[in-house]
């Protein structure tokens, strides 16, 4: 006699060991994991497209076809999304643009994480003057909006890929510092830290082996969300003209170039903007879903 399990009442399975595996209603599972599934698929797709751009793009992003200037999507057989004012294939440019956006997005977050988290944990665990020093510095940087700070740095250093990564990375660092310090403050009160210290672990060991792994969950969630922010910031910088200079395609500068043609040929701005939105959406979905999964208390958000 098979007992139909209600997935939310596990106590009913008192004699559980011999029963069949619970049959979760498929609808509920789908609904619960759909967002992260969609997000992960989208994000992975973006990464694959970016990495495989030379193989995936149908045409070269800088090849100019004089016979197909400003043609709409599908108007010419080989240009699925249309062409721009120089006759360059829009689809290929957008695919190559994914490289810039994703490289900057991922690398700048890794930079900010790598720089900010150790500083934050140091501040949280050590306390005292080191903490004050680090936090004052972080607060001063945080008085600047992320975009503005990145803008200043990129203008100072010049618009190249590594500089963009550095600029956005530095702009994100204080956020990581703040977060890591907050987490460290909570974690250091835990019993296992006291135990570790009692067993003679030095500060460094405590920070690396105990504080950091326990802070990792929350840090990863935030880092994913910041990837979305970084991609958006990079697109904004490129749009304003401070990012990678043309002719290298980046979603922001494709959009910016297309802006002059919105009267006749809106597909340029539409598709590049859509690409930006999908990339940002993908990482937001993944970050949100991670947060829901890893910290049920926050699920309400």
């Amino acid at each position: 006699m098979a007992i139909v399990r209600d997935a939310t009442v596990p106590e009913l399975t008192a004699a559980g060991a011999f029963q069949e595996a619970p049959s979760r209603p498929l609808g509920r599972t789908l609904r619960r994991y759909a967002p992260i599934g969609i997000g992960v698929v989208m994000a992975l797709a973006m990464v694959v497209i970016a990495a495989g751009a030379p193989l995936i793009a149908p045409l070269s992003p800088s090849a100019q076809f004089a016979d197909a200037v400003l043609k709409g999507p599908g108007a010419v057989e080989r240009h699925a999304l249309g062409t721009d004012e120089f006759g360059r294939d829009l689809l290929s440019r957008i695919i190559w643009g994914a490289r810039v956006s994703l490289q900057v997005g991922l690398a700048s977050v890794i930079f900010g994480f790598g720089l900010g988290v150790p500083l934050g944990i140091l501040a949280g665990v050590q306390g005292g003057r080191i903490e004050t020093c680090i936090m004052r510095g972080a607060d001063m940087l945080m008085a600047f909006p992320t975009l503005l700070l990145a803008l200043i740095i990129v203008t100072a250093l010049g618009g190249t890929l590594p500089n963009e990564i550095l600029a956005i990375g530095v702009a994100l660092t204080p956020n990581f510092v703040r977060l890591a310090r907050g987490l460290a403050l909570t974690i250091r009160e835990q019993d296992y830290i006291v135990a570790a210290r009692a067993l003679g672990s030095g500060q460094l060991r405590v920070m690396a082996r105990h504080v950091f792994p326990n802070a990792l969950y929350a840090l990863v969630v935030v880092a994913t969300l910041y990837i979305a922010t970084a991609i958006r910031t990079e697109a904004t910088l490129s749009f304003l003209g401070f990012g990678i200079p043309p002719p290298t395609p980046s979603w922001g500068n494709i959009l910016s170039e297309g802006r002059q043609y919105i009267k006749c040929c809106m597909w340029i701005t539409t598709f590049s903007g859509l690409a930006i939105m999908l990339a940002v959406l993908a990482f937001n979905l993944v970050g949100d879903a991670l947060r829901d999964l890893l910290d049920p208390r926050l699920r309400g958000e």
Partner: protein
Amino acid sequence: MVQYVLRRLVVAVPMLLGAMSIVFFAMRVLPGDPCVAMMGDQATTEALADCTKHLGLNRPLAVQYVDYLWRSVQFDFGSSLRQGYPVSEYIARMFPHTLVLVMASAIVAALVGIPIGIVSALKRRNPLIDYPLRIFALLGLSMPVFWLGILLLIAFSLRLNLFPLIGGGDLDGVIHMIRTGEVFSNPADFLAAVGDVLHHLALPALALGFTLAATVSRLSRSAMLEVISQDYIRTARAKGRDEWAVVYKHALRNMMVPLLTIIGLFVAIALTGTVVTETVFTRPGLGKMLVDAIGARDYPLAQGGITVFTVIIITVNLVVDMLYAVVDPRVTYK
């Protein structure tokens, strides 16, 4: 309470100084000599030397730094390198446009975002309502402001011809009329000018407001959720109070503190948003001025602009901190 206020002030001042110092050194680090930029590379060495001396750029860095700080405190940011007019005047002229944009987007964001956030929190068990709202929030969060702005322009300005493509409207006229009291002597003209300003404001405010509404709705949702799970809500419900009263009298009032945080964050995000929005819609304003100035290495203008931005953000956060203390006295005990 006074102690709390003083403590916050004491913290704010070095932050302000620090931010201004960062601005100063960042500008000096920028490659490109403003004198060369202004006079072209055919200029003679004497002309360049004159220009440098005139701009005070040949003084030792420390002297320039102190001078900069001292003058900034008096709101004297020098004169624009490109066009020569005093920076503070230019900022004062651009400021109302940005202010109006931020206020209008704030209204849009609040009107759209807060109810959505609250409804989303209250109806979270009902996937039919919760899901579309959450999708709205995610889309708004992910959509770049400049893209939404361009889409709005295409739809409402180009295709439907309902709104103007560029410009900020006759805001100077409005201000002038308010100042000279013409508001009363010539109400028709005043209303026409206000109408013009609003007409130019509609699309940019919508674009910026919608994007901000997404963030606001998420923050309201979590604020509401936090409040709803509190015991006093359960008590009120147990007492048989009708749902409306529970929401209004208890939940909303207690949401005030997190809502203040929202306002504080909002200003920073909105100001950054104006940078892009003003560029897309070709509106006059601080954001566009700043971006142009940085790009053109116009030191005084860029410095003045960034300083004003950061001062506004730090001040708003300070005020929000003060309001926390007013709304929730427990904060002062920390």
